[in-house]
């Protein structure tokens, strides 16, 4: 559809730089954009647009005349379904078609700069932009703006009267809390930025926008606190995003893979969340959030290993409880990683390590089981993974049936049939529950994969194999960086100042500073001695500014 236009009006030479610098790069052949200016003839302009939007039935062209005698011809172009139709009818069409003529006579219309007058005094709408290039007009129409074209002017007005169907704010499905805000991001970027703005009412909160994806033209928001995020980090994030040259960004996961430091790692080096409070907390620590239109998942960089084992609720619940839960999580993390492989190693190579009674009991259970412990564990783990995956993908009503089948067939029947030992079922169940305790889904998946690797090592080299595997994992983690930050910090390289919020969480009134890892500006998040108020030494709630860590 674009081709005729290109042949007619331009070649590479007329190409104008896109507003986004990613377009500076040579675009693949066949996807040339023609960027020519609007002409002053309405017919011609509409002709181009009709050509560009040929066979697109959702584009609405409405041409009409302005003025008492219909001397001035005008048109609006928009995408049906992306605009607020009431706004366009009431505030745009009605304004120029009915109210304009009453304001003056036709003589004025021919003398004055009508377009400027319309922009200045006719549209009771807050977002009106001017555009002089066809490409700008096309982009704006496709993004949901309404283009207003006037005969005799080579400038179009882009009226922001967007409105499309969105999901209402919901509780985040992947990060539910007992205590804490229940709102989650939605698929519309603007609503998401407003959710963050509602949390941080500071002019230091900056949200820069860019468009990525040649076909999808996805809006990307880069949010950061100007006084907290270092300039290097901000420009590094922008640099990496601008390097992306792809045709589609449909989910923030695309970006994650493009901007990660080590794309070959099993571990996610970018944190993702559906929770505005988590994003706000990250921003207030000097991190950068990347919001992507069309997905409720925002990215937070840099991300550290320990953050994947923290939940936002840790900061809302009483600190002792949170600390206990965190310790539990670390324990569960190790269990979900190691339990099946330890079982294999001990029952295959190091039986002497078990107390005699337990050893005899396991040996009695395993009597009649035809497989070695490794095969038995592998079978069970794979069926468990399959069940879990089935549970996610299946329509919800069937989910229950699957869990019943899973529990009965795999749990009960396979034991009574003598295919697996009861001990193995316990191991798999405990591993499964532990892996659900890991709050971040990305980390939980990494654990599941590594668990299989460790099982193979355990089956071939026993405890030595497990240790070697663990060493390899730790070394790999030690090499990782997330936007320049060592992935394992603050554990290593050691930053004891940041340890108040790692394995345990200390009370809010002791966390006087922000984590000193991302250094910039005022590190203090509250004044010292928050809890010292007149006439009292202790007691009551901590007052003062509170920021989530």
């Amino acid at each position: 559809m674009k081709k005729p236009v290109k042949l007619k009006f331009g070649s590479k030479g007329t190409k104008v730089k896109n507003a986004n610098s990613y377009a500076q790069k040579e675009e693949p052949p066949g996807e040339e954009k023609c960027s020519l200016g609007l002409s002053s003839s309405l017919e011609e302009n509409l002709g181009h647009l009709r050509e560009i939007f040929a066979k697109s039935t959702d584009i609405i062209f409405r041409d009409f005349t302005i003025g008492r005698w219909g001397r001035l011809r005008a048109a609006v172009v928009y995408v049906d379904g992306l605009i607020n139709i009431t706004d366009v009818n009431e505030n745009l069409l009605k304004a120029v078609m009915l109210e304009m003529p009453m304001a003056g006579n036709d003589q004025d219309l021919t003398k004055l700069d009508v377009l400027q007058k319309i922009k200045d005094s006719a549209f009771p709408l807050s977002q009106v932009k001017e555009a002089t290039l066809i490409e700008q007009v096309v982009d704006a129409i496709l993004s949901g703006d309404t283009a207003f074209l006037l005969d005799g002017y080579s400038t179009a007005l882009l009226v922001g009267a967007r409105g499309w169907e969105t999901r209402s704010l919901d509780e985040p499905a992947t990060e539910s809390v007992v205590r804490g805000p229940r709102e989650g991001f939605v698929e519309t970027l603007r609503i998401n930025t407003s959710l963050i703005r509602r949390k941080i009412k500071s002019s230091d909160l900056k949200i820069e926008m860019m468009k990525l994806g040649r076909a999808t033209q996805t809006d990307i928001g880069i949010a950061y606190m100007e006084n907290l995020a270092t300039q290097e980090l901000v420009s590094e994030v922008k640099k990496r995003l601008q390097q992306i040259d792809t045709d589609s960004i449909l989910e923030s996961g695309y970006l994650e893979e493009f901007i990660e430091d080590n794309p070959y790692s099993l571990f996610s080096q970018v944190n993702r969340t559906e929770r505005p409070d988590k994003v706000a907390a990250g921003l207030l620590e000097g991190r950068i959030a990347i919001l992507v239109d069309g997905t409720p998942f925002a990215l937070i960089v840099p991300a550290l290993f320990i953050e994947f084992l923290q939940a936002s609720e840790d900061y809302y619940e009483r600190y002792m409880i949170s600390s206990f839960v965190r310790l539990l999580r670390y324990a569960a993390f190790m269990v979900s990683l190691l339990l099946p492989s330890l079982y294999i190693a001990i029952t295959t190579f190091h039986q002497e390590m078990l107390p005699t009674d337990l050893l005899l009991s396991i040996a009695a259970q395993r009597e009649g089981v035809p497989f070695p412990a490794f095969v038995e564990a592998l079978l069970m783990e794979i069926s468990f993974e399959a069940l879990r995956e089935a549970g996610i993908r299946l329509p919800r009503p069937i989910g229950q049936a699957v869990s019943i089948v899973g529990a009965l067939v795999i749990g009960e029947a396979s034991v009574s049939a003598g295919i697996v030992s009861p001990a193995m079922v316990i191991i798999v169940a405990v591993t499964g529950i532990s892996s659900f305790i890991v709050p971040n889904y990305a980390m939980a998946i990494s654990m599941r994969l590594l668990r299989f690797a460790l099982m193979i090592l355990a089956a071939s080299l026993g405890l030595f194999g497990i240790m070697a595997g663990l060493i390899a994992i730790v070394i790999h983690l030690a090499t990782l960086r997330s936007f320049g930050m060592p992935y394992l910090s603050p554990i290593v390289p050691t930053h004891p100042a940041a340890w108040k919020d790692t394995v345990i969480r200390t009370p809010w009134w002791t966390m006087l500073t922000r984590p000193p890892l991302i250094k910039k500006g005022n590190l203090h998040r509250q004044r010292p001695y928050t809890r010292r108020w007149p006439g009292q030494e202790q007691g009551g709630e901590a007052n003062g500014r509170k920021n989530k860590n």
Partner: protein
Amino acid sequence: MLEQGKISGRQAYLLIINVILATAILFVPAIVTSAAKENGWLAAILATAVGVVISILIANLGLRFPDRNLFDYLGDIVGTIPGKVIAFLYIWWFLHMNALVIREYGSFLVVAFLPETPISVFNFSILILAGWTVKQGLEVICRTNEIFLPLILVGLIVLFLLAVPEMDFRWLLPIMEHGVKPIVHGAVIPISWYGEIATMLMIIPFLKQPQNFRKIQNLAVITIGIFFTMVVLGTVAIFGPELTPRFIFPTLNAARIVNIANLLERLEPIVMAIWITGAFIKITFFYYVAALGTAQFLNLSSYRPVVYPLGIILGAMSILIHPSILELEHFLGKVWPVYAISTFEVGLPLLLLLIAIIRGKRGKT
């Protein structure tokens, strides 16, 4: 410089501890008690005192050139050709020492845990892992160590505390029944372990603050001394001065007899975990200095290409160097201390320091 990374003082401190402690912790009780009997702990203390002296020597040499490492300034001190010769000998020493450690490592795993597995499986699997780590650079080695070493030290202390009920401190008496001579004798081999600190000459310039190195090193040697003494005291108090030297790995045997309420028993996996991780980092570090040294010797722009070739040499050496663990023990007990202390650990550094002082060579401070 071939290494871009910088390590902090804390990382250097932990690295020194691990490099010396990791292998020594298993062998030291048997070795010191075989000569010094019930006064083994005194031998450990004496060795530590000598270790501090060696540490001062190494720091004095290294800090004359705080921005360069041994292979960089060797040529300045003794001239280009002799410098190359000494550098070559040092590379040999790094490799030889590492081959011995790898062999001890493999032997331990075979003897204590997986008797039917051939030793080459352990030697080569650990070398593949170590080679990969060496390629990641000094920073990663230090970070890995920073994670594991605190766990190792805590594990050792817990083991010691759990074994207290089995201890009878009357085994430690009488003190110095046969005078000083057996104690000196018992201290010689631990001194050769302390001498391994000479490898630090290769990494002093990579410290963030090299001027603190002297303090860090002395502190590390004293920390190691405390753990040495603790392990010797513990094992002798458990097994007595006659039985301890007869074990190859008394620390492992000590862990085996721990039994708390029939629940916590057979804690040797702790010892094995300690040994595997500790020795792994030690092997990796020696491997690293060998690779770095080789690259400097050959004037390469990166040490990474020589990592795996050196690994093959190390793997072959570790297996071929001694036909059995008994001969390895004999070599470590009788030959190694004299050979290592007199040349690479004390002899050469002392000589280099003297020449540097006489010729007035000194780097930027």
